[in-house]
Structure formats: C-alpha cells, structure tokens
C-alpha cells in the first residue's frame, strides 16, 4: 500500500479540524486528503457517489480498497506512526462495535458539533478581545 486517500467533508468544520490533525501526524503510510465535493474526487474515483461519501468518512487505498466510517478511522490511525497500536486495538471484535457506534453518532451530528466548535471559537475570540480592550479602556478613563 503506497498511500491512503481520505475523502472528507470540506463543509464540516469538525471534519476539517480532524483532517488538519491527521495531516500534522507522522505517518507510516502517507495520507492524501481530498474533499469529497471536489472535482478531483470525481476524477480520481469515478462513481464515488454510489459509496455515499457524504454520510461517513471514506478512506480508499491506492489499490482501490474502500473503508467506511469506523473502518476508515481505524485505517487512518493504522497509517500513523504513533497510533498504529491503537488501530489494532480498535479493530478487535470486542471494541469494533463500540467504535462503529461512536463514529456513526459523530457523523450524524457532525454539523451540530461543528456549530458548537464555531460558537466556542467565537466565544474565546470575543473574550480575548475584551481582555486586550480592557487596559486601553482603563487608560482612557484616566
């Protein structure tokens, strides 16, 4: 296996954050990120829509092997140097149903979770702005 193509949702903040995190990790197998909405996804994988990439994360190897949802996440972890052992653990029949349930729950609620992330970001930015603004306000009062 030379590389793994990760088809993520570019409209989902949570997915973009996960993509950024994955891109920062050291990998045994290089991960190539492609937004499933992009022309490149259609060009590289003809008939990709039949696999419903909008529902769950899709990972496709350079040989054409397809992994969806929890399986896709396990493959992403398997590709990373520091998480390969975790991938083995998660793929165990005892943990796989739990991983599947968690991934389905996250995928179904990803837009809601993205809104929460956005709101939290806005809140931290606003509170940081207030902390910076406060000293100048104090100076103006004098």
């Amino acid at each position, binding site marked *: 296996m030379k590389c793994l193509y990760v088809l993520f949702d570019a409209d989902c903040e949570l997915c973009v954050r996960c993509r950024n995190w994955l891109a920062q990790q050291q990998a045994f197998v290089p991960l190539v990120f492609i937004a499933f909405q992009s022309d490149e996804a259609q*060009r590289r994988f003809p008939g990709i829509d039949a696999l419903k990439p909008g529902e769950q994360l899709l990972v*496709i190897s350079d040989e054409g092997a397809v992994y969806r949802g929890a399986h896709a996440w396990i493959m992403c972890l*398997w590709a990373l140097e520091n998480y390969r*052992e975790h*991938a*083995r653990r998660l793929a165990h029949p005892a943990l796989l149903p739990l991983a599947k349930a968690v991934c389905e729950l996250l995928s179904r609620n990803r837009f809601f979770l993205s809104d929460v992330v956005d709101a939290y970001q806005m809140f931290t930015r606003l509170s940081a702005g207030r902390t910076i603004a406060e000293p100048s306000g104090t100076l103006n009062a004098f």
Partner: protein
Amino acid sequence: MTPIVWTYIIYIALSIPLTIWVAHTLHKNGRIFLIDSFRGNERLADSVNHLLVVGFYLINIGYVALALKECIAPTDVREVLETISRKIGVVMLVLGAMHFFNILVFSKMRRRALLLAVPPPIPPQAHVSVATQ
C-alpha cells in the same frame, strides 16, 4: 606518591575497564536487537551498533575524566577508599543510566520496525477503480 595520586590512579584503573566492560556487553547483546530492528540488514545494524558504542565511550570516558579532580585530598587509607568508593559509585550510576538509555533506543527502534510490518487490521468493505492522474 601522595594519597590523592593513589586515589586518582585507582579510580582510573577501575572506571576505564568498567566502561569497556559495559560497552562490550552493549555491543555484543545490542547487535541482535538491532538486526531485528533493521529487518535482518546486518551491515546497517553493525554500523549503527558501532556508532552507538563510540558515543557511549565518548560520553562515559569524558565523564570519568571530568569527575577525576577531588577537592578534599584524602590523608589516610580509609579516606582513600571512601573517596574511590564514592567516585566509582557515581561512575557506575552514570554507566547504568547510559546503558538503560541505550536499551531504550534499541527497543524503540525495534518497536518501530515491528509496527512498520503490521498489515491493515481490518479487511476492505468494497473495491473501486482508482484513476491515475
């Protein structure tokens, strides 16, 4: 010769062979670890092993040389023995720490090599054709 010179001579005579013995043990037994880490590439394993041992010698002999000087000169045999014992004790602790550090490096290399060979833990769910760019 004064007692301090005897202390120095005994200290050197003990700590240098001790360093050589530890380095030899590391060189002999670390080789198997390294060959496994480099997937049977004996030449590369021997090269890395040799480089590690050179580093080990430089650090330890350097430390032994730096720690030679004793500010309070011993006056009798009892003090000579106490000083040598303290100095050799510290050298042994440094050697032990370096030895465990080397073992840690060997095992990390081996672990990484073993992980690299692990096949995907799950089978694919479907197959698609991938267009080459």
